[in-house]
Each structure stands twice: as structure tokens, then as C-alpha cells.
């Protein structure tokens, strides 16, 4: 929201040497965040009022007109202007030759479109009214041509307050409320709000507007006043300038006046043509009802929308926008002025559903003070009387107030204040800090009673801690010295899953060269379908970020594959890890699991075996590191809705027979659809289910101890057909038993010129020893013979 410092000065005597930026910083630290402070510098000199005598289009210059202007003293000048909406007899802000403004410098006489143009009709933006870029600013006919305009009215400072930082403060949505905070910040008094005394102005004989409110929760208060005589004159220039400075475009005198009060007090108002709206009924719309708002749009309503009706006929969308039909127009002679209070939820829902957020609805959403309805009408009368002496009040104040606000008194406990703020706050100090904000402080026994002003009592301040906030922010959060807390020691159950995830990530990024990425929680359905991947039953978002992003991921692999496809341009070797949540449909509840996804990709043909072995080795190392256990990789059929599982090369990863994940390589056909270039790559992936694994314990690792008698290592190589699985060979070795055998390990495999084609040599290393004596050559030879014999009975050829 934009705040005009001139406007604030109406209510607080600010020091003349006040630095607006300094004030803004103090406001940020005390009340709400200021986003920007900037001066309005028009530097007006010599501006006068001019009246349009005649207008002529310039046929050779589209959009320009030649205007004849009465500039006073019987003088008429001609000027070329682009200002729209001029008409004969209207009065405008005119810069004669010799005057100056910051935007143009010295004004003179120029030749425009071949015509001599003397001075200029000053456009709105040159006066700091950005909303009226090239438009002329009209002034009251009551001002005489040639009348000098006050240069001070054009100068201002504008403070922009972040709307989000004051959504909880309905009182700050008008200048008077902001002025209250500023008064308290600078320590000067806030002037009373200037309103007319209606009692004095309204004669007893007048009637009232009938007001019927169907739902007091939706409309706690509805106040109205009738007038005769509709203002036709523009609002005073100072008012138009102020509205312009706070980002509102001057429109007509009447609209400007209600807008001014909205920006002044925060209370939106609406004027109906009283010929068409004679009584007020506040009630819900009919389902399917059609209603045309002021902006000319026809809207289809539901029973959720609150309407202002007159004789059963809808005339306004309550708190959002008036109706086109009952708009004040040229023929209007009598006005019904509405100043009402609506439920914030009702207004917000309507504004959102209809896609129609207005300045009014934005304010009603904040939960306004119902006391302001009448105050705003009194303010309207106060402002309108000097502006429009011809307007007459033709009714008594009509006020439907079915739901008065409960006054709030909060009890404060000095001990609680002290422990929260970090120091004692004596009652006098409390009084001194709270009084300028409208709170009344009364001592009550041990503590104090604080009564909350109505403009803070609509949800903003209701408990002790709310009042403590007021005290704390006026003492100053940056003033109390920070101190570390004094706390009690206690034990917390370790968060085993979090620990597991962290250690897992640490392992794969340090013991192995994986790079961590983080992806979105949802699949990209478009990408999946391009890949020909049917993701199966997914948990779904009701409001996805974009079309095709509605499926919650069931696996991390598609995201990892997408990352490989993206990175393959830049790196020939990719090892990527992601830890994250995946989701599964369930009955009755859907599930969320934590997974670890790993993918390794290498450019090159025939890299798959090595790639697979590397990844497998990394997982074996992880299982030992985390759980002191060996993992098994059990060949498994691929899952139908997971085409990234290779038809033949998919394995289930198990620990102690328990499935903990899956692993595979990406089939050529899928690599080809992802990216033609990936056909010459190998890609292996694994997905581990960390949820549940945190319950696995980590037994102490067995350690041999120091052996007293030396042990001997002997290597044995066997040649087997390449089609024979290692697993089969390894398992056959487990059946060999010998009193001297301590251990058999796998060393490596060899395929190449030294042996026949389609054969593979597997090398195993045996450790032999006797715990009671030193082995002699005969022992070693005997073992060698026995083991070789065993290998041969298994059908393996020995490699020498």
C-alpha cells in the first residue's frame, strides 16, 4: 500500500526536518515492512487554471487536438494537446509559458503538428499521478481561469508498505491507522479523526433507509445515508493529487471522495442511484443468478455470494463491486451511500471464485472494524460539505447493526511479560507504550487489564501474547540485548531414518563419486508418455502446478533418467544420487516412503557389465558400512509398470532375505526413446527403500584377531563357460571343507586371448593355516591338491 506523507501530516505534526527514509526504517522495525520510499517531485512553478473554450481535431495529426483555452485576464491561448476526455467548459491544470515543472523544465511556446502551441495542458504523470499518464487533471469550475495553483500540493513523499506484512492489521489499511503508528513511533500525538456531527446536520423529520440483514455473521453491520444532489464537479485538486500519489486514478468527484475515505480510514463505501435502490436487503444470491457488475461483466452467482438487494433485486455484489444497473450516472439526482461491514471469509471466497479482487474486497478480507461504517459516513459528510454545498442529506443515519463487536479486555501477568520480553516492564511503561495505540491500561491486582480498541479487536488482538507483541515492538526488538537461553538437558530418541539417510548420502558421495540432485515430487506425465512409460496407479494432486504434473512419483528412477538425458551433453561419465519421498496409493491411506535412487551412466559400448559391477559394489559397500551385512542380488522379473527394469537383468536387492531395493540396467529400447545418443551409452540404476531400513541394527563387525601361526594365501583359477553364472561357481565352493581352510575370496575374472573364446577365468584366493602350529610345505601341497581335486570334481578346468 502506498502512503502519502502529506496525508499523514494531516493527523500528526511531524518534525519539519524529518527524514522520510529514516521514518520508513523505523516503521519497518516497529510496525510493517516498508518496501520503498520515494519523493514526488513535480517542482511546479507558475501553474494556473485554464478553461477549455473550444476544441478542434487536427485531421493531419491523429490523437492530437487544438484547444482554445481561457487563461484568465480575458486572454485566450491555443495549445495542441493529446489529453483525452476534454470538453468545452471544463477546467484543467495549465502550464503557461514561463512556468516550469520537473518533467519538462521551462515551458514555452512550441510548434506542434504545424500549429503554434502556447504552454501546455499538464498531463497527470507530470504531476506524479502515474495512473493518469497523459490525461488532463480537471479542477472545479468554481476555480477561476488564471487562478494560481498552490505549488506545495504537488510535492510529496510516498512510502510503500508491503501488503503481506500487514494482512493481520485491518487498521493499517488507511492513512489514519498508519498515522497512529507513526505518531507513536515519533512520540507525537495523533489528532482526532475529523468527522461531521450528523446529529446536528440531520433534522428529526427525516426518514431512514430500511435495512434488512439476512445473515448477521456475513454482514455484522450496514450503515447508509441518503442525499439529494449529485456532485458533478471534480474533487478538489489537492484530493486528486493525493489519490494520484497513492496510486489511485482520479475519476469523478463522487468516486474520488469515496476512494479518498477508503484510503483514509480503510472503509470501502459505495453509492447507489437512490431512485433505483430505495431499501437495502443483504442476502445470499440465488444459484445460477446472473448479475452484471460495474465493469460491465455478467457474472453467474452461487448461493455462496452475498448480495445487496433492493426489493428482491440484486444491486451489488457485497463488498466486491456494485451493479451496473444501479450505478450513479448522469441522470442520477439522489444517492444512497453505503458503508457496511462484511465477513472477511465471505468476501474473500466471492472475490476468488469470481476472479474479482478489488480494493474494497481486499480490505474487507482483513476483517474491518464495524465501528468504521458510521465513522466513514461522518467523514464523507465532513469532506463533502465544503466541496459540494448543494448536496443535502435527506435521511437520518440508517444503521443495521445486528452483531455488535464484543469488547475485549486482556489480563496481563507481569511475570509472563518479563519472561517473554527478557526484562521487567513496569505498568507506567506499559501505559506509555500502549496508550498511543489506543489501548487502555488499568492496574488489576497482581497484573493489569488492557482494553483493546475496536479497530484492533476483530481478530488481531485477543490474548495476552498479542498485547505483549505491542509492548515488545515499541520497546524495540533491536534494543533488548540478545542472550542465549537457559535450558534443561534431556535425552531424545535418535532419529534413525534421518541418520541413515545422511550417512547413506555421505557414503555414496565420498566413497563413490555420486553427485546429489533434488527433483520434483511429481512425475512429468508428458515426459513419461514420450518415453512410453505408463506410471501405474499414482497418488494425484488436485491442483498440479501445470498440466501433466499431477502424478506423484512412485520411483526416483524416471527423474534420474531425465537428469542423465540432460547432463549427457556435458559429461561422459555420470553418477547421480537422489534421496527423496515417493508415494503409493493405499487403502484406506496412501503411503509415503523414503527412497535412495542411484544411477550410473557411461558413454561407450560394452560398458554395461563393468557399470553394473561398479554400482553393485558400491551398494555392497554401503550395506556393510551401514549394517555390517552382506547384500544379495536376486534375479527378479521386471515390474510391468517400470520399463526401466530390464527384462532379463533386473535384480532384487535383499539383506537377510528382506527386499530392500531393486537394481537393473536400462534396456537399449528405452535408451533409444529417451535420447538417440544414449544408445551408445550404458546406464545402470538402483533404488533402495530407506523407510524401514532404519530399524536394521548394526552388529559389531567380526574381527579375526592376531593369529599366532602364519597363514598362507594360495590363488586358484578355474576356466568356466562364459554362460555359467559366477553365483553358481561361488556357491559350489561353499561346499568344500578342509581343516586348514580359513577363507575363500573372489579375486577377479579374466576373458581374453590367453584363454578360449566364450570362456571366462575366475580366480579365488584361499587362506589356509593351523591355529596350533606352523604349516610346512607338505601341508600347503596337500591342501592345493585337495582343493584342485574338488574343483575338478565340480567340472571346472584349472587354469595354470
Amino acid at each position, binding site marked *: 500500500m502506498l502512503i502519502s506523507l502529506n496525508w499523514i501530516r494531516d493527523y500528526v505534526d511531524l518534525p519539519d526536518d524529518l527524514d522520510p527514509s529514516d521514518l520508513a526504517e523505523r516503521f*519497518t*522495525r*516497529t510496525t510493517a515492512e516498508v518496501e520503498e520510499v520515494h519523493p514526488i517531485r513535480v517542482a511546479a512553478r507558475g501553474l494556473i487554471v485554464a478553461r477549455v473554450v473550444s476544441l478542434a481535431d487536427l485531421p493531419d495529426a491523429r490523437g492530437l487536438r487544438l484547444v482554445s483555452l481561457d487563461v484568465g485576464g480575458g486572454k485566450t491561448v491555443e495549445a495542441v494537446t493529446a489529453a483525452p476526455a476534454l470538453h468545452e467548459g471544463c477546467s484543467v491544470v495549465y502550464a503557461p509559458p514561463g512556468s516550469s515543472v520537473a518533467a519538462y523544465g521551462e515551458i514555452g511556446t512550441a510548434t506542434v503538428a504545424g500549429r503554434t502551441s502556447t504552454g501546455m495542458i499538464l498531463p497527470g504523470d507530470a504531476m506524479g499521478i502515474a495512473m493518469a499518464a497523459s490525461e488532463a487533471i480537471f479542477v472545479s469550475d468554481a476555480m477561476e481561469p488564471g487562478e494560481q495553483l498552490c505549488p506545495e500540493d504537488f510535492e510529496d513523499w510516498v512510502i510503500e508498505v508491503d501488503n503481506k*506484512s500487514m*494482512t493481520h492489521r485491518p487498521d493499517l489499511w488507511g492513512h489514519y491507522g498508519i498515522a497512529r503508528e507513526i505518531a507513536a513511533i515519533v512520540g507525537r500525538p495523533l489528532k482526532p479523526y475529523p468527522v461531521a456531527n450528523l446529529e446536528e446536520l440531520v433534522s428529526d423529520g427525516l426518514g431512514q433507509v430500511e435495512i434488512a440483514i439476512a445473515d448477521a455473521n456475513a454482514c455484522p453491520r450496514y450503515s447508509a445515508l441518503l442525499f439529494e444532489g449529485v456532485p458533478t464537479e471534480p474533487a478538489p485538486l489537492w484530493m486528486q493529487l493525493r489519490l494520484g500519489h497513492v496510486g489511485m486514478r482520479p475519476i469523478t468527484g463522487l468516486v474520488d471522495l469515496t476512494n479518498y475515505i477508503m484510503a483514509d480510514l480503510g472503509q470501502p463505501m459505495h453509492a447507489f442511484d437512490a431512485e433505483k435502490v430505495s431499501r437495502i436487503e443483504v442476502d445470499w444470491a440465488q444459484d445460477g443468478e446472473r448479475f452484471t457488475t460495474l465493469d460491465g461483466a455478467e457474472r453467474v452467482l452461487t448461493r455462496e455470494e452475498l448480495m445487496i438487494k433492493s426489493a428482491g433485486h440484486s444491486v451489488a455484489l457485497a463488498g466486491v463491486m456494485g451493479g451496473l444497473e444501479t450505478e450513479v450516472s448522469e441522470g442520477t439526482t439522489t444517492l444512497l451511500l453505503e458503508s457496511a461491514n462484511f465477513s472477511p*471469509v465471505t468476501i474473500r471466497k466471492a472475490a*476468488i471464485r469470481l476472479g474479482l479482487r478489488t480494493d474494497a474486497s481486499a480490505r474487507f478480507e482483513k476483517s474491518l472494524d464495524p465501528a468504521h461504517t458510521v465513522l466513514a459516513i461522518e467523514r464523507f459528510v465532513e469532506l463533502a460539505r465544503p466541496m459540494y454545498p448543494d448536496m443535502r442529506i435527506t435521511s437520518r443515519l440508517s444503521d443495521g447493526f445486528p452483531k455488535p463487536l464484543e469488547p475485549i479486555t486482556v489480563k496481563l501477568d507481569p511475570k*509472563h511479560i518479563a*519472561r*517473554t520480553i*527478557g526484562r521487567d516492564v513496569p505498568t507506567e511503561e506499559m501505559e506509555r507504550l500502549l496508550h498511543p495505540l489506543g489501548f487502555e491500561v488499568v492496574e488489576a491486582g497482581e497484573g493489569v487489564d488492557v482494553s483493546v480498541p475496536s479497530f484492533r479487536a476483530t481478530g488481531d488482538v485477543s*490474548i495476552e*501474547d*498479542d498485547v*505483549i*507483541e505491542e509492548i*515488545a*515492538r515499541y520497546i524495540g*526488538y*533491536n534494543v*533488548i540485548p*540478545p*542472550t*542465549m*537461553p537457559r*535450558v*534443561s*538437558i*534431556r535425552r*531424545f530418541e535418535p*532419529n534413525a531414518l534421518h541418520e541413515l539417510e*545422511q550417512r547413506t548420502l*555421505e557414503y555414496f*558421495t565420498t566413497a*563413490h563419486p555420486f*553427485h*546429489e*540432485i*533434488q*527433483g*520434483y*515430487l511429481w512425475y512429468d506425465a508428458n515426459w513419461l508418455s514420450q518415453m512410453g512409460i505408463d506410471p501405474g496407479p499414482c*497418488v*494425484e*494432486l*488436485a*491442483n498440479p*502446478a501445470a498440466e501433466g504434473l499431477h502424478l*506423484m512419483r512412485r520411483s526416483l528412477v524416471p*527423474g534420474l533418467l531425465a*537428469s542423465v538425458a540432460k*547432463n549427457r551433453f556435458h*559429461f561422459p*561419465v555420470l*553418477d*547421480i*544420487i537422489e534421496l527423496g*519421498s515417493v*508415494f503409493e496409493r493405499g487403502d484406506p*491411506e496412501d503411503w509415503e516412503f523414503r527412497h535412495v535412487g542411484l544411477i550410473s551412466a557411461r558413454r561407450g559400448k560394452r560398458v554395461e557389465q563393468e557399470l553394473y559391477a561398479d554400482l553393485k559394489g558400491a551398494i555392497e559397500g554401503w550395506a556393510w558400512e551401514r549394517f555390517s551385512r552382506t547384500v544379495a542380488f536376486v534375479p527378479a522379473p521386471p515390474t510391468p509398470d517400470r520399463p526401466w527394469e530390464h527384462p532379463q537383468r533386473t535384480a532384487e536387492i535383499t539383506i537377510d532375505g528382506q527386499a530392500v531395493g531393486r537394481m537393473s540396467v536400462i534396456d537399449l529400447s528405452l535408451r533409444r526413446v529417451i535420447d538417440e545418443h544414449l544408445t551408445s551409452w550404458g546406464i545402470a540404476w538402483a533404488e533402495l527403500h530407506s523407510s524401514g531400513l532404519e530399524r536394521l541394527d548394526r552388529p559389531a563387525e567380526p574381527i579375526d584377531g592376531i593369529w599366532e601361526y602364519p597363514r598362507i594365501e594360495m590363488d586358484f583359477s578355474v576356466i568356466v563357460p562364459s554362460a555359467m553364472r559366477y553365483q553358481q561357481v561361488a556357491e559350489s565352493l561353499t561346499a568344500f571343507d578342509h581343516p586348514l581352510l580359513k577363507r575363500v575370496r573372489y579375486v577377479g575374472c579374466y576373458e581374453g586371448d590367453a584363454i578360449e573364446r566364450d570362456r571366462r577365468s575366475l580366480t579365488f584366493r584361499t587362506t589356509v593355516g593351523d591355529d596350533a602350529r606352523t604349516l610346512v610345505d607338505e601341508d600347503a601341497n596337500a591342501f592345493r591338491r585337495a582343493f584342485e581335486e574338488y574343483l575338478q570334481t565340480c567340472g571346472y578346468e584349472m587354469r595354470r
Partner: protein
Amino acid sequence: MLQGVVDLVDIEQLDKAIAEIEADLTTRLTDASGVDAVRTLETGVLGKKGTLGSLISSIKDYPPEQRNQVGRTINEAKVRVKNLFQRRIKELESAATSAEAASAAAFDPTLPGTRGPMGSVHPVTAVQWEIERAFERLGFTVEAGPEMEEEYNNFDALNIPATHPARDMQDTFWLKNGKVLRTHTSPVQYRTMRKFGAPLRAIVPGRCFRYETIDASHENTFHQVEGLLIDRDISIPNLIAMARMLLEEVMKREIELRVRPGFFPFVEPGIEIDMNCQICGGAGCATCGQSGWIEILPAGMVHPNVLRAGGIDPNEFTGFAFGLGLTRLAMMKYGIRDIRVLNSGDLRALVSPARLGGPIIAPRKKCCSQTS
């Protein structure tokens, strides 16, 4: 006289034997490839049982009148042989020195170390771990919670009424099963209070989700760290001190704070803690919107309704909570200007080039391309 003749013959034989020993030695010395071999040879010749050494013990076998001559002959031979050995040893030693010198010249300690490829954690994870360590040192438990959260935990338990705008479709991702993607880590406040009761010290790093249009500075998926401290005597100055510690721990330098009021339904009073912009140092830049301050840590005293929902008596215990913008902090620390890269899976934007190949020689300045 026969004796004498024989004796003369014996001496001749001795000369011949010595000549043979010397000839043989010359060949062997040439063959000897190292000092050690020469020393072994030396023992074999000059040692007590050596070919020449053993001759000395045979002096007594000669007639007394010849012993002088025999002794002289043998000693002269010894001297000659010793010289042979010394010469060869010198030869070998000087050869060894020059070989060593040559190999010393080839040994280049300035060649880069060889290492395997390196992995990396995500920039957000790196900062998250630092924060976790800092708080663990202070006895905080590190908690987590589901990303798919119950509506009640995400909102009601945190004093966010059913009518609050945050619940609207335009702010929150809703699932068809009625749950939400948590909009903050704060529901874990509730979970943790329920789990441990008071007193309590916990931090909750985690991913959050808001329905937001993505651009260079807005993401719908981002990280926070929630902090929660509940005890018998907790104040706002305590909260501010903790915030300073946390931020300095991550930024590794002294920072300036600005504390101002802020509103969040689950705290009262609520504050916003700003940090002086680490990119411009507070002078004003695009990242801080020219203000010199970065909004980094919304915080406040836990609202009594939230304590009650968590099963904690607000009359006995109070506490503070904060929600640190972890993603933003990581961006500050690593000079990342476009938030979108964090979820892009693009390694160029996530991994330091030092980890993505061989040693970097040039440019010499810090390889943080995005900070410039």
C-alpha cells in the same frame, strides 16, 4: 741345497698363484655391478679364509729364512689387491651418484596428485548439514516428517483457522486424497511436541511446497529448517541470540541482524529476522531488492494454542520457533542467483567444477562462476 731349490720353486709357485688370483679378481671386479658385490668379493679374497688372506696363515709353513720374503710378497699383493678394490668401489659409487642425480631430476613433486573422481552433495544439503551439526552441538534433536501431510497438522494444529487464505488452492498443493504437500516444516513442530513433550529442543530440516509460479526467485519446492525450543524460561532475546548463532555458523563470519515485527498464526509475538545482504554487504543490490537486507528467518514465540495442540501447558512452558529459509541461505552462501537450478538436476549448476574433472590450472580465482 735340494731344500733350497725346492724352496725356490715354492716361491715361484706362490708368485704364480698370486698372479692368478689378481687376474681372476680383475675380471670379477669388472663384472661386479654394485658396491655390495665388491664387498662380498673383498671378503672372498682378503678375508681369513679368502684366496689371498689364507696365504698369510701359510707363511709359517715356509722355512724360517724364506718367511720374510714370502711375507713381503704376500703383503705387496695385498696392497695391490686392496687398491683394485678401492678403485672399483670408487668407480661404482660415482656411477651410483650420477644415476641417482638423474633420477632425482626426473622426480617431480609438483605434478598434481592423482585421485579418483569425486562426488558431491547438493548445495542445500551442504548447508543443511552444517546447521544440523551446529544445533546438535547444542543438544537439539534433528527431526523429520512426511512431505505428504495431514491438513490438520499443517494448518489447524498451528493455529491457522479453516478460513485462512493460506489454505486456498492458490497457496497450497492439495492431493486428491485430502492431504496436502506440507507448506512449511512447522507441522513437525506439532509432531515433535506430541512425540517428546517439553522441555524440547528440535530442528527440522525439510522440503516444503507452495503453489507458486516459478521464476528466478520463486520455487514451488524449497527447503526450510524449522527450529523449536520449549522450556520454562524462554524469551525473545533468546530467540534473537540463537538466530545470530545459526546464521554466523553458516556464513562463517559476523553478520548484522535487523529484527522487525512479522505475522504468522503459529507464533505470538511474531518477528522477521533480516540479515545484511551477503552479496552486496548491505549497500543494496538486485538480490536484496536494494534494501541491503535479506529476509531470512521468520520466527516468534510459540502461540499458546500451538503448545496446547502439542499437549504442552503454556502456563508452565513457553518457547520459540523459527523457520529458516534454507534454500535462500544456500543461494546466498554459494552465490546462486536463479533458484530454479536447485531442482533442475543439472550438474553444471550444482557441482563445483573442481569435482568434475582433473585439477584446474586457470583461472586462478575461486571457481564460483555464478558469484561474479
